[in-house]
């Protein structure tokens, strides 16, 4: 079976500013693939171009070199005006900032995608309500984003993407800005939701523990220009208990191996 998402020799450099040296490559010769139903984590130091990589896959930014195949077909473009963010709803993107619409309540934020896709019916409403309950947001449906805590906003942003069920979901350090305890809870929520549907997920993080706790496989990005420095299969069986991940057999050894690769 061919992989669902394939990145081939991807390169990115930002346009040179007038009168300056051409800017350096942020990503170069970056290749990897993701199988259907796989939870892939990508670890890299700050400034390794992790967000840039996801922006290019989600088509909110162009690639300067290389190719991206989605379901075996090329979706690459070099023309910023030809970009199709989310490429026809096949790629969901949970960004680092929650980017909730401040004028919409929790439920209306969750229903937004269904609304604009013309998929709003009783079944999809029930699904949204189920997701809201699954992440503990029941009772907060009519709250506006500014009335929610940081963790609640993250959960809202997460289920806003899960609710319309895109085949691939990209996640850009979605839990980086919350405290450690909330983060563990959010990771557990995410794993529970993922076990329910087994979506294909590409999850970017700078936190090695998070990469091990969530992923089937972890890729390590090098410093700029970024490429894949190493690849590790996570030997910890599922379902995993995120809170006790340190104690599980295989964790320590994997952690050491990945840490040695992260520069």
């Amino acid at each position: 079976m061919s992989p669902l998402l394939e990145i081939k020799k991807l390169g990115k450099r930002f346009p040179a500013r007038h009168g300056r040296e051409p800017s350096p490559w942020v990503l170069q010769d970056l290749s990897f693939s993701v199988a259907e139903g796989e939870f892939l984590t990508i670890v890299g130091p700050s400034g390794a171009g992790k967000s840039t990589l996801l922006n290019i896959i989600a088509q909110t930014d162009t690639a300067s070199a290389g190719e991206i195949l989605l379901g075996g077909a090329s979706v690459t473009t070099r023309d910023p005006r030809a970009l199709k963010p989310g490429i026809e709803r096949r790629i969901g993107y949970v960004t680092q900032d929650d980017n909730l619409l401040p004028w919409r309540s929790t439920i209306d934020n969750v229903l937004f995608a269904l609304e604009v896709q013309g998929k709003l019916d009783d079944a999809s409403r029930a699904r949204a309500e189920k997701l809201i309950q699954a992440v503990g947001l029941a009772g907060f449906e009519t709250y506006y984003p500014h009335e929610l805590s940081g963790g609640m906003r993250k959960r809202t942003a997460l289920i806003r993407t899960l609710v319309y069920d895109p085949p691939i979901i990209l996640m850009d350090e979605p839990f980086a800005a919350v405290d450690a305890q909330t983060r563990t809870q959010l990771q557990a929520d995410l794993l529970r939701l993922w076990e329910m549907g087994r979506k294909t997920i590409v999850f970017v993080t700078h936190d090695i523990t998070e990469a091990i706790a969530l992923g089937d496989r972890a890729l390590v990005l090098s410093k700029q220009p970024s490429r894949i420095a190493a690849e590790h299969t996570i030997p910890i069986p599922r379902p995993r208990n995120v809170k006790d991940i340190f104690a599980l057999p295989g964790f320590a050894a994997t952690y050491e191996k990945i840490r040695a690769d992260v520069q």
Partner: protein
Amino acid sequence: MIDATAPSPPVRASRRRTHLDHLLVFAIIIALWSLATWHFGTYWVSSPWAVAIRFVETVASGELLRHAGYTLSEAALGTLIGGVPAVLLPLLLRRHPVVVAILDPFMVGGYGAPKLAFAPLFIVWFGIGMESKVALVVTVVFFIVYFATLNGVRALDARLVQTAQILGASERHVARSIVLPAAIPSIFAGFRIAVPYGIAAAVIAELISANRGLGYLVQNGAMNFDTTGVFVAVLMATLLVQAAISIMNAMEKRLLRWRPPSEPWLETGT
């Protein structure tokens, strides 16, 4: 639920305090006015008491309200005709910055031009009826609201647009569900400034040539050396502006429920 409608005791106390202060300032203004009347004589400055009596009389006879109604209709119609395209144009031109750039010098010119100076011209073109007043209000309202909306559209968070596009929003959805709600605070800021100017523009156009409206009452009072009549008409125009601002405040409160509440003592009437 956080109940924003029930103010906490300190807020209520500070509100009562504000009302008391309003009364105090009102009393000072009346005192100064009375002083001016006493100093210059009622021939030049009508007394607060005479103005109050005339106000009640002309309201009771329906005359004042009829004139106020004309002025209000002109201002409302002009605000609508000028305001709607002023809101729509920046929204529609969001994806066409080149067109905005081409229009810009002309819009800046229109914004800066002393529109009230067009009043005689509009009267020549459209006659002394309602049309010339509406035309003046349109020119006053349009440019203010256009630039306010344009600022709101420009300040739009591009990440919200991208997020919406990823979630499957078409250009139409983006305009209606992202750009418009994001620009609402700026649009309101524009109307808050434009509406009082619009009412003033209607009054001034009536001053120049009309046979009805508050401006006509001012002009008529001045010609007959009836300062009481002038004061009554100006007072009525002020009340119209106050009423318009109250309506806009109520609308804004409703439309902008989603914003974090501001401190109550920072809220002002204008």
